[in-house]
């Protein structure tokens, strides 16, 4: 019954697509699929709004701002094949412009792990539906099979990948401008996410797109001023600081499975619409605001405090200090850093039935899973504190972060060097690992150059350092090599 359409691309290439009644429709565009589903063709709901500005913006997005294409093939400056391949997995970036039958876009189809298969739910037929994040972060979660839900660690991993993707956009001066649960597909099972709907990006120097945004993710200042004319200087339009609001909302939802602003407080009794407008816009209030608890649900069990002081601080900046003051919101890179540090303190919950399975052990005096209340089974916590030398002050060290080790915990270059960060360029070669042998702890050098013993002697590859409470050693004699303090805490 379905008709086949043919799109002519700007490159002259022709592509077929299946015309369906009621195609999937977003706020701006609707989508048709390729006969073999390998790509999608999208047209605008209102073609009359596609003007010169839209076209030049989309050309720039597909070309010189494209992080999924190496520079050698017209992609963004400095992008090599490896980085392009990395970001190709993280974004569903449009690849071409459709010129006929009307202006539109070609994008690759999402990888298959972002579609449910028939085993996703016993109660619903979800086969072939895309994995929008609110399947996993709302009450819909209960309709999915446990095998789909992932755990706290996979949610933390997705938070990291998403922060990295947004940082990559912002680093190039781009902003997504409509980040939301609809525009980030997640696969908690594998801990992966992909950012979609790239065409409404804000591109430096070009006229910004007209996006309304999505309820729950629109920054409060955008919502509060959206009725003002576009030319009014008080009107706030989407950009990187509003992305940072949406990013924080998404991370909060992934980690806590609830929305950070939607709580019990009634903002208006006039109508649901006005109540909502005030509660997400001009009067938005974090449900965990420590000074004003009027929006706090009575049954909050796990809170931002349970992620450790660094993550807590980031959330406070996002939803207390920065909620109505965009300049104070944490950058995507700060989220990356905070999440990496939280990652290093992950512990496996000893309760086999715990739905979160992992938690951040930030308080060694209370090593209890906040999700299920179970104490860790380990007898000891091995905590390495990583310090970096203060520049220009030889011998002065500053605490950088902490890493909890169990048997086989690996150390990477970002642990042995303070100037290396685990980003998309990171070297994933294990430098050293922790080993428990005959009730003693050791650090075994596998690939590290310049590892020093506590006495300051070189430790060649294949050799080990014995770790006891109070051991201090240099992970690398390099300038930016870290100094590691070992604490072994009995539980």
């Amino acid at each position: 019954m379905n008709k086949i359409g043919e799109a002519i691309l700007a490159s002259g290439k022709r592509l077929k697509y299946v015309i369906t009644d009621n195609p999937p429709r977003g706020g701006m565009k609707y989508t048709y699929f390729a006969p073999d589903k390998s790509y999608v063709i999208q047209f605008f709901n209102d073609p009359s709004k596609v003007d010169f500005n839209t076209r030049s913006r989309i050309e720039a997005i597909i070309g010189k701002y494209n992080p999924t294409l190496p520079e050698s093939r017209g992609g963004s400056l400095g992008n090599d094949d490896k980085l392009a391949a990395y970001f190709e997995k993280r974004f569903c970036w449009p690849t071409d412009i459709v010129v006929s039958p009307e202006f539109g876009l070609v994008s690759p189809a999402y990888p298959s792990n972002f579609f449910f298969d028939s085993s996703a739910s016993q109660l619903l037929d979800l086969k072939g539906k895309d994995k929008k994040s609110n399947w996993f972060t709302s009450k819909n979660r209960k309709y999915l099979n446990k095998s789909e839900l992932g755990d706290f660690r996979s949610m933390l991993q997705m938070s990291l990948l998403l922060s990295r993707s947004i940082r990559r956009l912002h680093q190039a001066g781009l902003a997504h401008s409509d980040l939301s649960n609809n525009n980030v597909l997640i696969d908690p099972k594998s801990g992966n996410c992909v950012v979609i709907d790239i065409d409404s990006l804000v591109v430096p120097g070009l006229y910004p797109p007209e996006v309304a945004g999505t309820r729950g993710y629109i920054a409060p200042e955008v919502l509060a001023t959206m009725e003002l004319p576009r030319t009014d200087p008080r009107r706030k339009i989407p950009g990187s600081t509003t992305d940072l609001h949406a990013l924080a909302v998404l991370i909060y939802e992934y980690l806590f499975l609830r929305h950070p602003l939607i709580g019990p407080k009634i903002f208006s009794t006039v109508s649901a619409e006005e109540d909502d407008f005030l509660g997400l816009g001009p009067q938005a209030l974090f449900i965990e605001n420590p000074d004003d608890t009027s929006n706090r649900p009575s049954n909050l069990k796990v809170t931002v405090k349970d992620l450790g002081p660094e993550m807590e601080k980031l959330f406070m900046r996002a939803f207390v200090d920065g909620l109505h003051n965009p300049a104070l919101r944490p950058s995507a890179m700060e989220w990356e850093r905070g999440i990496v540090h939280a990652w290093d303190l992950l512990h496996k919950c000893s309760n086999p039935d715990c739905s979160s399975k992992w938690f951040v052990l930030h308080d060694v005096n209370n090593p209890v899973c906040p999700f299920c209340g179970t104490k860790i089974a380990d007898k000891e916590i091995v905590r390495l504190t990583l310090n970096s030398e203060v520049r220009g002050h030889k011998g002065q060290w500053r605490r950088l972060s902490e890493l909890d080790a169990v048997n086989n915990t690996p150390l990477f270059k970002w642990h042995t060097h303070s100037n290396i960060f685990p980003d998309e360029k990171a070297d994933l070669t294990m430098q050293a690992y922790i080993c428990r042998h005959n009730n003693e702890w050791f650090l075994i050098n596998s690939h590290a150059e310049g590892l020093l013993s506590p006495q300051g002697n070189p430790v060649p590859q294949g050799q080990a350092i014995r770790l006891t409470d109070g051991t201090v050693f240099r992970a690398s004699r390099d300038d930016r090599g870290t100094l590691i303090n070992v604490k072994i805490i009995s539980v």
Partner: protein
Amino acid sequence: MSDFARRLPVYLLLDVSGSMAGDPIEAVKHGVRALISELRGDPQALETAYLSVITFNSSARQVSPLTELMLFQEPQLHAGGATSLGAALHLLTECIQREVRKSTETQKGDWKPLVFILTDGAPTDDWRGAAAELKATKPANIIACAAGSGADTTVLKEITECVLLMNNLSAGDLSQFFAWVSSSVKLSSKSLDSKPGANIELPPPPQGFVIVP
């Protein structure tokens, strides 16, 4: 998100008068079934939309009370009798009064309900009072669809500004209508974008349907 999520009440007012007997009523049943299955596959709709079905022939009856999608039971529909649109509108007002949560000091109110009316004939009862009241108090966003040439669009215009006309009562058109209802509900549950008093956004009507000016 679950505890404080607002509901989007959706009311279907379906004409089950004698003229709907046979293929049309089968197509309506099929359409309702398809609608439920579509909406259950959309996470936002599944989370927010609640559905009720009111049928009308010689009288009006709420065959399905406002129910969340996962618990919704498909109603038994039988065609026969007259077209008591007035009674259906009265019942709608009553159901909205009773079922839709109001915003109060202690309770988060529901979103303004979405109402879809499907009728193929001219009302046989007194409908004016109920229509005027709905139009004046606007307790819901109402979309009326006149099915086939026998339907009276001027009556529907008295109820709401938003009236669609579909060519005939064919299974194809009816199934398109329900598919469009599902797109409308999906779009509404997504783009509840907090502009108090703003008009709701609806997807373009299916091919062959015309908007009655």
